[in-house]
């Protein structure tokens, strides 16, 4: 079942479940058809897509008519944000987002600014929670869109979504609410009606589904300007071809994740609590980034290891067959410190020395023991090489 490598970077992508691969197979081999009317092959695919749509939609408290399958979270975010701006934004209209949001949201915000919209960027506190007082005071008469990320992709902070909903609803006019649920889907309960969102993006490959498939929730009655123009198959908004096999895999991943949602999230929470307690016991001078306990997603632990740099740590773990992520500038394409950690008020050393572990249903206690043991050794070794450590720890 388990490949040799310990993989703890599940917020980027997850291993497809064997059941998912099985569920996709028939749509590659036998039922490779496209949707269509009146002929049995086309109707079979119509029915299949509807069934899969219902499965996925049910997981977020809605039905298939409010769901668009698309290539993944980023396309879903673009369809929603640009779609809402086209449908409801007037030139110079006002948008609110936060500085710790997912890059999809921030790059779209920058795009909207270039198109003449005004954007307010809310700050975040030391644990990654967005500032709700700022949200209240940022709302203007021409604010038409608020967007945020349900679970922060770096530190796992769960945003106070109920409070956000209340603030948006208290405004004297309608403010459309888009939620990026890429990291939240399958990790915390998401009911689109309870959340009060108008659009929401989700993705399959974060929950052991295949890569290249996601979905956009669009509340009934909410208009979206069309992003992709083309031939209509089953979906009026997301035109063009569909990959039925991936949709089948997505639905299967949803069945697996939500079939035992309480147990599987409790399992993740137990493992991440265990990971944090082991890290704190084995490695001196580390600190948790983001909140402790229920206010962080159950699969994410992010710590800063003082005096040493994350790319070196990641490389050493990689040699030992362990995959993790770091917020170090040295490991990034742009040589920049992680913007979320910096926005949370962390300093450069804390950002460069930050390590992110994200767990999945396949993570075991043994994986964690092995990782912590390896990391303890690596931290000791790299600290002995570090001038910052030597300067402050003379007698060892």
């Amino acid at each position, binding site marked *: 079942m388990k490949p040799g490598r310990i993989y703890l970077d599940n917020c980027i992508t997850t291993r497809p479940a064997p059941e998912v691969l099985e569920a996709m197979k028939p749509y590659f081999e036998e039922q490779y058809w496209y949707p269509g009317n009146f002929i049995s092959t086309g109707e079979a695919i119509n029915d299949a897509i509807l069934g899969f749509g219902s499965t996925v939609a049910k997981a977020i408290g809605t039905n298939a008519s409010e769901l668009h399958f698309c290539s993944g979270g980023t396309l879903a975010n673009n369809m929603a944000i640009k779609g809402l701006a086209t449908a409801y934004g007037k030139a110079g209209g006002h948008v609110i987002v936060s500085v710790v949001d997912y890059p999809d949201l921030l790059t779209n915000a920058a795009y909207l600014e270039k198109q003449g919209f005004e954007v307010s960027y809310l700050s975040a506190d030391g644990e990654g929670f967005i500032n709700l007082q700022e949200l209240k005071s940022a709302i203007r008469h021409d604010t038409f869109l608020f967007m945020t990320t349900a679970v922060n992709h770096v530190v796992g902070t769960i945003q106070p979504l109920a409070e956000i909903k209340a603030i948006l609803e208290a405004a004297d006019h309608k403010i459309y609410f888009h939620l990026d649920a890429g990291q939240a889907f399958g990790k915390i309960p998401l009911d689109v009606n309870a959340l009060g969102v108008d659009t929401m993006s989700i993705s399959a490959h974060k929950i052991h589904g295949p890569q290249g498939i996601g979905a956009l929730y669009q509340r009934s009655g909410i208009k979206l300007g069309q992003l992709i123009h083309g031939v209509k198959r089953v979906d009026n908004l997301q035109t063009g071809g569909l990959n039925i096999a991936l949709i089948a895999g997505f639905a299967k991943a949803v069945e697996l994740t939500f079939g035992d949602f309480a147990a599987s999230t409790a399992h993740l929470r137990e493992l991440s609590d265990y990971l944090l307690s082991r890290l704190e016991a084995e490695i001196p001078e580390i600190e948790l980034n983001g909140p402790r306990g229920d206010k962080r997603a159950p699969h994410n632990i992010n710590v800063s290891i003082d005096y040493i740099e994350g790319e070196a740590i990641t490389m050493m773990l990689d040699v030992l067959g362990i995959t993790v992520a770091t917020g170090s500038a040295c490991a990034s394409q742009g040589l920049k410190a992680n913007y979320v950690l910096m926005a949370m008020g962390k300093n450069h050393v804390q950002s460069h020395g930050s390590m992110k572990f994200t767990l999945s249903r396949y993570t075991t206690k043994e994986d964690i023991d092995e990782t912590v043991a390896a990391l303890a050794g690596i931290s000791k070794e790299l600290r002995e090489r570090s001038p910052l450590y*030597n300067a402050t720890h003379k007698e060892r």
Partner: protein
Amino acid sequence: MQYSQKVLDHFMHPKNVGKMENPDATATEGSPACGDQVTVYLKVDEEKHTIEDISFLSYGCASNIATASIITELAKGKSLDEAKAITWRDAMEALDGLPPVKVHCSVLAADTLQTAISNYEIAHGLKEVPNFSKDTILEELKKIIYPKVGEDIVSLKMVKYVGLTDGDVLIDLNMMSFDQWRDNVAEEIREHLEKYPEVKNIQINFP
């Protein structure tokens, strides 16, 4: 983007790593803000002016540790004059190359070695404290690597003008506004020049 086997070897098993007790000279370059810092320690034979022993400490990524390791290997046993000729290009070559975005690590390691040698020479009356001039600035600019290609900005003819008036440094850089590395390069220039007490103000202009 991948490291060579030599980089990995020197990263996993660095040579001459560790703090030296009673060194004859030492230097620290870089800063935690940039994510890399190197300290070099020297033991110098006073008669022969050779580097008897050398060691380093590194806060930084794999290539930072590997380049510091190789630079100590290159300098060990050499005369001070021979060691002064060691450049970041030598370190790169000895490591079978570095990815372009990591070339600045080799500059930091070579730079720290040179500063340690200079500190030794000044302390032992072998040379005067150099005067700060436009040449000093130009020498520092030769240590700034354009991460996209892994070459220094002077060789790439990106420096159009260098001015120095009463501690005010003026640099014109030929980098376009859409260049994703512009902020990195400007930040690194500031860091290299701010360490000189003679520098009061740095202005960097772009087209």
